[in-house]
């Protein structure tokens, strides 16, 4: 919160928080509404359980008064109590089952909702969002909500139990009831306070543990530096500090526990002391039976857990509310890029070469104040290949992102085969564009699934054709399980070049009209660049292709070069012409060339 916040800003913020909170609860209500039948069943089970539970000490009391004290028959009482035990046992198990099952189900559905929503949000959102934060929405925040939901049926039966017990106690002996229950509200208050106090400390302990993990992680990953400089002591000192911090926070937590937990345990015992003292004298004066006295003690123990639980659920509810607000914040974000209300379709004439692209007076900036492309006009004929060249940060990758509608232009239009791409359904547009990203992103999945990702219904013939065109078929067959080999971060590790070729196969499997190659050679061992370029050349032929060139060698693949400098097209033409006529072009080329030659390895990898 900034100090300079004005009153109107404060009230606006509070209002926003208020709406978010109420939206959050609305979200929870909506979720629970769908499960209301089962939750109701859970509630009924809980209430029934509570009534039986409360009945047992009553029966025990009668058994003592009538059975034992008055020498009555005992077997009946014993059997009755045992039967009650069966009923409460079954009900208590069921109550637990329903509560946990329903809370997990709500959590599961909410996680799916969150995932689907996030996946549909525009790339501009993802640029700003942190993966870690989204992950914690879908894991720890959902856990808070689950922990709250699970308590709902339990709380319901707890409330009933408290009321029933209190009623029985008051009917039996109002004076004694007051004496016995006097300390109990403090159990509830303490439980709530405890939960609220211990929560921030547990978070702090976790934060300290994360810091210690960082020190260990960097000491292990950077072991060559540590060993190379003999920096073991330096790292040890850092670790010792973190270990001491953890110890400090843990002892704070211990302090809080020692302040609350023994007190919570002991408060009901104070009630029991009162029962013995006051109740005992009332028995002596004949106002109460011994059975009642015993029952009082038993009832007191029945009140302890419900009161603790209710204290806890208040604290849990506060945390769940905060989590709900955070989740609602994500869910209420709407995508900036959407399907049009009325969509056109792309022409699909068989006799026509398709894939003509036109950028018409396009202006764009990721931040509207910082223009990346201005007055950008470019026509690419169907089947033509162009290379986009520019210095780092010149906006050459932006061109492809606009074509994919990862972002919308600030002004101006982009056309594919004569149709404004904003008039097309996103899926239709994107299915017609095959992209190979600069940093090849593959999934932790089989080669087959990675390639057919762009066309899930592809058959094996399609798959092989794409792999062959991309020059990937041969090495795929060499993999341990061929096309069924699991690759990616946790699978078989491929070389940069192999990854690129799989990405190229993925880009062409659905035979798109347009191919975008964000320099597929830049992450590759230079000695393998040639192979990638061969694959690129094959897949480009006869297809509209935009090559975003980060290396000089890639430029040669394209028929025309579009040179972007200072946010707009500085020149268009053949590579040789530009080299001959444009100083700035030569300069940019030279900087690429230089960083390249210094990287050329003499070791054959």
């Amino acid at each position, binding site marked *: 919160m900034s100090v300079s916040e004005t009153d109107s800003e404060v009230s606006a913020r509070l209002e926003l928080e208020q709406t978010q909170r109420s939206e959050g609860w609305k979200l929870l209500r909506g979720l629970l509404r769908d499960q209301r039948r089962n939750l109701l069943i859970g509630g009924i089970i809980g209430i029934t359980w509570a009534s039986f539970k409360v009945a047992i000490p009553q029966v025990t009391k009668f058994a003592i008064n009538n059975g034992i004290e008055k020498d009555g028959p005992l077997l009946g009482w014993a059997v009755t*109590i045992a039967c009650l035990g069966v009923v409460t046992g079954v009900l208590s198990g069921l109550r637990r*089952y329903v509560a946990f099952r329903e809370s997990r189900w709500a959590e599961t559905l909410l996680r799916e909702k969150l995932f689907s929503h996030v996946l549909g949000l525009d790339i501009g959102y993802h640029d700003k969002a942190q993966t870690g934060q989204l992950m914690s929405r879908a894991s720890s925040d959902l856990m808070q909500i689950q922990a709250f939901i699970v308590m709902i049926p339990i709380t319901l039966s707890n409330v009933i139990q408290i009321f029933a017990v209190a009623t029985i106690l008051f009917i039996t002996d109002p004076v004694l009831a007051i004496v016995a229950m006097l300390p109990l509200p403090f159990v509830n208050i303490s439980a709530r306070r405890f939960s609220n106090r211990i929560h921030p400390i547990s978070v702090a302990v976790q934060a300290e543990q994360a810091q210690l993990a960082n020190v260990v992680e960097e000491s292990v990953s950077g072991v060559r530096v540590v060993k190379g400089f003999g920096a073991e002591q330096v790292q040890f000192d850092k670790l010792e500090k973190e270990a001491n911090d953890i110890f400090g926070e*843990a002892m704070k937590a211990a302090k809080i526990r*020692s302040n609350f937990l023994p007190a919570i345990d002991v408060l009901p015992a104070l009630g029991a*002391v009162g029962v013995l003292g006051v109740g005992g004298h009332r028995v*002596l004066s004949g106002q109460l039976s011994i059975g009642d006295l015993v029952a009082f003690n038993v009832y007191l123990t029945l009140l302890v857990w419900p009161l603790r639980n209710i204290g806890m659920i208040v604290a849990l509810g506060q945390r769940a509310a905060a989590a709900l607000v955070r989740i609602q914040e994500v869910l209420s974000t709407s995508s900036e890029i959407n399907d049009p209300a009325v969509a056109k379709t792309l022409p699909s004439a068989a006799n026509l070469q398709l894939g003509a692209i036109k950028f018409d007076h396009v202006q764009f900036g990721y931040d509207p104040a910082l223009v990346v492309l201005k007055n950008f006009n470019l026509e690419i004929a169907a089947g033509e290949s162009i290379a986009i060249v520019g210095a780092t940060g010149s906006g050459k990758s932006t061109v492809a992102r606009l074509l994919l509608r990862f972002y919308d232009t600030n002004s101006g239009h982009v056309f594919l085969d004569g149709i404004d791409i904003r008039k097309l359904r996103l899926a239709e547009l994107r299915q017609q564009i095959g992209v190979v990203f600069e940093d090849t992103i593959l999934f932790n999945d089989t080669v087959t699934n990675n390639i057919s990702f762009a066309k899930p219904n592809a058959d094996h013939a399609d798959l092989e054709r794409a792999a062959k065109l991309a020059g990937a078929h041969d090495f795929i067959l060499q993999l341990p399980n061929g096309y069924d080999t699991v690759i990616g971060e946790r699978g078989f590790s491929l070389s940069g070049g192999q990854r690129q070729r799989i990405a190229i196969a993925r880009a062409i499997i659905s035979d798109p009209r347009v191919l975008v190659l964000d320099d597929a050679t830049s992450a590759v061992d230079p000695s393998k660049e040639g192979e990638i370029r061969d694959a690129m050349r094959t897949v480009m032929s006869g297809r509209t292709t935009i090559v975003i060139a980060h290396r000089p060698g890639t430029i040669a693949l394209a028929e025309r070069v579009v040179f972007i400098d200072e946010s707009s097209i500085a020149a268009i033409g053949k590579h040789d012409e530009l080299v001959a006529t444009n100083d700035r072009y030569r300069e940019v080329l030279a900087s690429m060339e230089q960083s390249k030659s210094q990287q050329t390895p003499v070791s054959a990898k």
Partner: protein
Amino acid sequence: MWHAGGVSDEDRLSRAQARTIIGRVFKMAAPFRKTIYLSFACVIVSTATTLSAPIIVRHGIDAGIRAKNSGELNKSVVLYLIVVSFTYIFGRLLFVFVNRTGESFLRVLRLAVFRQMQRQSMAFYDRNKAGVLVARMTADIESMSELVQFGLLQFLSAGLMLTFAIVVLLVLSWQLTIIALIVMPILILASIKFQRDSNKAYLVVRERVGANLSALQEGITTVRVIQAYAQEQEAIRKFKISNRSLFAAHEKSVRVSTWYFALIEFSGVLASGLMIGIGGWFVHRGTVTLGTVVAFVLLLSSLFDPVQQLSQLYNTVQSAGAALNKLFSILDSKPEVDEHPAAIDLPETGELKVTGISFAYAASPAPALEEVSISVGVGEKLALVGPTGAGKSTLAKLMARLYDPQTGMVEFGGVNLKMATMGSLRNRIVVVPQEGFLFNGTIRDNLRIARADATDAEIESAIAAIGATEHFAQFADGLDTQVRERGSRLSAGERQLVALARAALVDPAVLILDEATSNLDPGTEAEVEHALERLMNGRTVIVVAHRLSTVQRADKIAVIAGAQIAELGTHTELLALNGHYAQLANAWALSHSTN
């Protein structure tokens, strides 16, 4: 709490292992033995007071109420109040002492394991994956913190409570004790089965939570690809599969607990039913008093709760045992490269001489180097080239004693590196790894990695020595700029500059460089080259080279192929040989011409 631990079958300890571990834990906990004794004392007092309450109640009922003696009743009430206060006071102390003991132990354990990890040589780090080592220091130690916070306390008090309760019950009435214990076998058997089943279910849940998180993360990090290919629906469908299978695992684990909790509840009520039925019959026959039966009904929970608690702790204890076992095995591993007891300081300068060394990594039987000899004179520059895996990096590492050779020796100024003090070794010979690895902290902190006692002036002059003063002066916070995790705030080139400044701070006689193969931003590339040149000036240099420009600058080039030095000489000499080196140079020329 009901599925706290989680331990897979292969991690389960044998009885002998468990005994050793317990012994070692006590040895490690020796420094805070006093707190442990105090904890024990508190447990005993608070258990005794908790248990004495029902006895006092019995006295109040039998000697006070039934005997119509209000004096006895009042005495009981006062005594009860005293006992309750004691329970409270000792309960508080107990929390403090037990937590202090446990957390102190974890702290000592963290420090000891980390210290031992730091002492290990590179070979240890080759054998153990980084992730596993981090897990030892984090997840494995943290898995014990629940035990420390609640478990230990529960274990002690539940154990004592059970023992005391049985003793008290026996004193009150042995007949009723037998009745109370009738349901015990059912309870114990059920608890054991439950622990086993819930452990199994928990392991499945844990695994699926991990898989679900990975699926989630993959979805978020690959969103650009998913959207580019319009495969959102497919991605959601796949995520749902993982998400639903996680739900199924949760559901299964709840089901496991359902019948158990039902049974627990039932057996408690059943026991009091038996007490009323049979106990009442005893009262009728005059064997026991009514007060005794009442005390028994009240004491039943003191008997059942500890059994339940102890069985629930079973898994927590098991998994803590498994974690300790892994941690102790780290504490037991001997560092392969260690300082000799009679080590001496290396001379200021001298020739670096390798004589007939052979070396094989533990992981592979094939030798990485065989009978290699080479010497590098003072101020000489040696480039090591060769195919990946031929042993050039290994040779460089042996020259800095990151490993010890199996045979042969490495000498500096006539002193065998094995006989040198670690301090002097790291001061004379410095390795600058391929990528500038930075630690969380400021640039200054990162230089101090090399020399913890360096003054600010020394740090600044190290930066100046590599000509990077101006570059870092551009930063708003200068050398106090936080580099963030892994130095992510800085560019690759800037990280490399910091790494070179580190070496300059040490001012070593010998510099061992592993040249970077990856891209640097063109802006700082030149600066790094320049810094490297200044750093190499006047020092003995061994460089694992990947660039022709570097090789050409070297005084001599050693081509390592097949675990041996295949060729040795200058650039021109080796080209003339028309062997390995000429081939490598050709490959370079070829890849250049395709541009």
